[in-house]
């Protein structure tokens, strides 16, 4: 069942509102800009599709057009942050942090200045643009970097909150956003805090039941936790709904902050005994890897990773690409059962 504390939308399974997470950035940047005069937004010739234009319209003097020059955008922002501004740099994730990784490493992360790198159009759901523009390695690139916070919002509302929070955190941040309209799951009341994960779906007894209680209820021992990040968390919820019907106890945790990872994940995973991770990213280096690193040290458990399996994307419609690359609801269901079956 949905976790009431997460205060999710009521119509989460029946035609929820659809909005791209980049819209959440657009709204959040305007709110952050109103709250703090130091906030500036830089754009590399993509202000419409990154939604940087929303900030531009509101604060023309604090919007800086950089032209098609992502390396310069990152380093100019580093200089501005060094001075005392709070710059958001906006482009497609394939170009930023794709092209300007070293500049981000040296002049933002090592320099330790609060630049917020906003990578739009992440994932295969960019669709027809094809593999060049479908960024699937951004979290891996940014997660390996000391001082860097990495956030992957699950919907437009969480993206709005994350943008506002990033402006206040005073550290280097990477945030990834999607192009495609995806279900809005959270509400203004859904808690959001950098570094905290959120339980979206939980077993009926709030937490995993004790094994004997499950026996009494005639349920099986089967239980699994699904850690999702980004809009695919909705697919994880759809899978959970089905799993519950099959008497499998399931928890879905929305992991918005990939780094630092919420240590609460360890306890939840231990209780579940089997883990599935879900992300629209290479399984190498993203959420799945992050959780595997955490659990291998603290609670070695079977982990099945849903994500792109060491390959590039291609042109197509977002939904068919998500299915083709193994990130659909049926894939998550199968992965959950496989993880459970692997329990010793």
């Amino acid at each position, binding site marked *: 069942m949905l976790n009431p504390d997460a205060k999710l939308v009521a119509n989460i399974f029946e035609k929820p509102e659809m909005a791209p997470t980049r819209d959440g950035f657009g709204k959040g940047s305007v709110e952050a800009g109103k*709250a*703090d*005069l*130091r906030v*500036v937004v830089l754009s590399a010739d993509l202000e419409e599709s990154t939604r940087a234009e929303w900030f531009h319209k509101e604060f023309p*003097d*604090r919007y*800086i057009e*950089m*032209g098609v*020059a992502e*390396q*310069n955008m*990152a*380093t*100019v*922002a*580093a*200089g*501005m*942050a*060094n*001075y*005392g*501004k709070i*710059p958001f740099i906006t482009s497609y994730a394939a170009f930023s942090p794709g092209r300007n990784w*070293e*500049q981000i490493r*040296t*002049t933002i992360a*090592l*320099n*330790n200045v609060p630049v917020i790198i906003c990578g739009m159009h992440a994932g295969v759901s960019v669709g027809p643009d094809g593999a060049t523009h479908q960024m699937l390695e951004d979290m891996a690139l940014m997660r390996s970097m000391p001082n860097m916070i990495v956030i992957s919002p699950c919907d437009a509302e969480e993206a709005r909150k994350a943008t506002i929070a990033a402006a206040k955190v005073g550290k280097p941040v990477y945030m990834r956003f999607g192009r495609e309209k995806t279900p809005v799951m959270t509400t203004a009341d859904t808690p959001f805090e950098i570094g905290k994960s959120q339980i979206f779906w939980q077993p009926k007894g709030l937490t995993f039941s004790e094994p004997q209680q499950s026996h009494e209820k005639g349920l099986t021992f089967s239980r699994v936790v699904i850690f999702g990040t980004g809009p695919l968390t909705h697919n994880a919820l759809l899978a959970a709904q089905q799993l519950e019907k099959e008497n499998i106890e399931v928890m879905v945790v929305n992991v918005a902050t990939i780094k630092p990872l919420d240590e609460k994940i360890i306890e939840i995973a231990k209780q579940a005994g089997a883990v599935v991770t879900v992300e629209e990213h290479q399984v190498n280096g993203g959420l799945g890897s992050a959780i595997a690193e955490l659990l291998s040290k603290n609670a070695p458990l079977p982990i099945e990773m849903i994500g792109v399996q060491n390959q590039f994307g291609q042109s197509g419609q977002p939904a068919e690409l998500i299915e083709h690359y193994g990130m659909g609801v049926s894939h998550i269901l199968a992965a959950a059962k496989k993880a459970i079956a692997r329990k010793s």
Partner: protein
Amino acid sequence: MLSDSEIRDLEQKAVAIRSTIIEMLVAAGSGHTAGPLGMADIFTALYFHVLKHDPKNPNWEDRDRVMLSNGHIVPVRYAAMAHAGYFPIEECLTLRKFGSRLQGHPEREKLPGVETTSGPLGSGLSQASGYAYAARMDPIREPSASNGAGGKKNTFRVFCVMSDGEHQEGNLWEAMLFAGKNKLSNLTAIIDRNNIQIDGMTENIMPLEPLREKYEAFNWHVLEVDGHNIAQFIAACDEADAIYEKPTVIIAHTIPGKGIKEIERDFRWHGKPPKPEEGKKFLDELRTMGGKISSEHQ
């Protein structure tokens, strides 16, 4: 205008800074020699005349900022800062050693006054441009609070020291476009035009000339000076300050390794330090003004 004796004093200071550079590189056992020696006159002029700064208060908000883009010549900056009073000169001998504030390439959070972290080439001008742009955005500087109240007008200048070889990096040309477009007159770039890079002569590796015309085409005000003529360099900085419509670049023609005959103009000295016995010989050369003062011989 500086008097002749004031110029002499600065030249003597530059010799002392060169000596410190030799001592610190010998102690470190690694690092770059030619670039720091070649830029000793310019860093002397900056730290002992041009810059508005306070060594006892390195974070003074009205200070002029110097962004060192080619971080590998940082020994000259450390030596100049030490001689100016930022930290004890003896600390220079910790260069590149474990736990030192004097990292092999400068880090902002390690040593107050270095302004930014650099080493990978071609991104200092962007950082300096961003800083200059941000400073100009604030007619009245905000304190640290978000309300924008209080504060003063920004009057400081932003300097960026670059190498010639790093002009082979694409990022730098992006920064040249940006600074030119935005007419960042509070930005003064200084190029160490010494014609060498690690693998050889710049014009053989990847030609940069005509460098002046390239900057002019990017809407910069261009000055060229003898990088070992302190008076000429100071005059160029004054002129750069007076230019209102454009950023200024000072192309400083320098001799790599200047001051040590054996090192001068030899690209093989770009990236290696003197050995201890070489160091002693070089220090003698500096302290005796090329053997003219025999009593200095130790």
